[in-house]
């Protein structure tokens, strides 16, 4: 039933990077996501797009990792944009009010294209 989380970085471009997650984003996998994202920020890519299309499950630890990443990106004068959010995760982001803080886009490409406009929200 458990579905290990895979973390990919399919795209980096200047300050931007896309971090793509697939599988269960929970207490077991959240630290790895956080570490990978902070690594990208530290390596000059503070404008992160989290492609969440493959996330099958996300709990409060997953949300916690997103908040932590958002905070670090902001401290590095960057941003965190969410892309391709599955329905259930979308409801979770809505319940927690995180969608009002984190820009959301239908796809990673759309997020990259719109990044400049969205930075005002970070």
């Amino acid at each position, binding site marked *: 039933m458990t579905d290990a989380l895979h973390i990919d970085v399919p795209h980096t471009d200047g300050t931007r990077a896309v971090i793509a997650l697939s599988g269960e984003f929970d207490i077991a996998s959240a630290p790895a996501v956080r570490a990978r994202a902070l690594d990208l920020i530290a390596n000059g890519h503070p404008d992160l797009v989290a492609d969440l299309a493959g996330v099958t499950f996300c709990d409060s630890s997953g949300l916690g990792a997103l*908040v932590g990443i958002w905070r670090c990106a902001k401290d590095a004068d960057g941003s965190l944009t969410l892309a391709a959010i599955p329905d259930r995760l979308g409801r979770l982001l809505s319940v927690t009010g995180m969608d009002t803080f984190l820009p959301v886009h239908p796809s990673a490409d759309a997020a990259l294209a719109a990044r400049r406009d969205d930075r005002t929200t970070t």
Partner: protein
Amino acid sequence: MRRYDILDTPPDGAYDRVAALAARLFEVPVATVTIVDEDRIWFKATHGLEGVTEIGRDPGLCASAVLTDDTTVIPDTLLDPVACSNPLVAGPMGVRFYAAAPIITADGYRLGTVNILDTRPREINEADSATLADLAAVVRDQLELRLSALHVVRAEQEKRQAEEEARQRAERDKAAIAAFASTLQRTLVPPVLPAVPGLELACHYKTASPQEVGGDFYDVFPVGAGRWAFFLGDVCGKGAEAASVTSLTRYTLRAAALVDAEPTAALKALNAALLLDAAVGTRFCTAIFGLLDPVRDGGFTVTLATGGHPPAYHLSPTDDGGMRVEAVRAKGGMLVGAFAEAAFASRTLHLAPGQGLLLYTDGLTEARTAEGDMLADTGLTDFLAQRQVPVRAGCLIDDTVALLDTLPDTERDDVALLALSVPTPDAAPAGITTTAHSAAAPTAGASVGQENRRP
């Protein structure tokens, strides 16, 4: 000799056979296997010599035989200056011939002798001496074998004992950790629910593991002027880190409510407190905060504010005997402690007699059914719609715990449940029923005081 642990052991076929073999080979009436102790000669095996188990060392035939590495042969004892006075020789047995080969261990210790005795003088040749020495070597091998077997058995016993001690120590450690976790847990959630006039309250609390402090929390407490406040929430994370946030959360909400019981104000105060904390950035939670204001004609006005938490459910019986289940959502209401700009909103409802309110953490809605799907809001709504009317908090919690018990994978997360119901005038004439369920383990319906019981 001590290490062979052979003295005074019961007769042993192997040594008896050596004695019998010696008697037959040499055609003598008596053959013995003796072990020489500090002050006695002990007969491990005898052939042709009944009722003798030991004799003194001095003066002894064996005693002198054991002192030499070679086979001792006394062809005629009466001609031997030492042997002639030996009781075996001078006594009724009248031993005239004696030969003995020492039993020499691998490391050179002489433990005893293999002896042959006859009542008439005789000679033995070199080959016979060697045979007697071989019999002594057989006894030596037998002793060595027995010793190594003893070593193995002892090592095995010691290993088993060490394992048992380690297991007991681990059990004690585990119990101590569980006891510590459960004690700490009691500082995070109230050990008993208070008795609120005109209200039935019930709760259930289960941590994913008895060794770990949960991140879920709830509380119910008076805020003065007949009003009561309650909250329930979930701290992101688990273990000691989550427990410290839970503790901060519980006391901040209690203190804030005493200053201003308005639910959004309490959540704002908590948001500020968590953001001011040194470990900011990793410490946040979701919470529902409610305020109960008694209504003169029965029931309560409930003001509910949500901080990023799944909605509470308001259960109200309909006129046709059914159950209306409404998710209580307030617009806005973000994760508490994550964003400085977080906004919180509240909603007001009337909790009338016969109605109930269920608050829960995501351990309930994210529990998987046997088919592998999450129970989710829809599953919970359907389940609540089938509850009996009028709503009773105790039954609601019992039913929900029973539901959790039917799900296969509920040890994944903590679960906290808090139910409130207003008794109908005909029911519970005594007024208050407080049903508290507290279980640190996945045990249905465990009462307060039972901790860490696992199936």
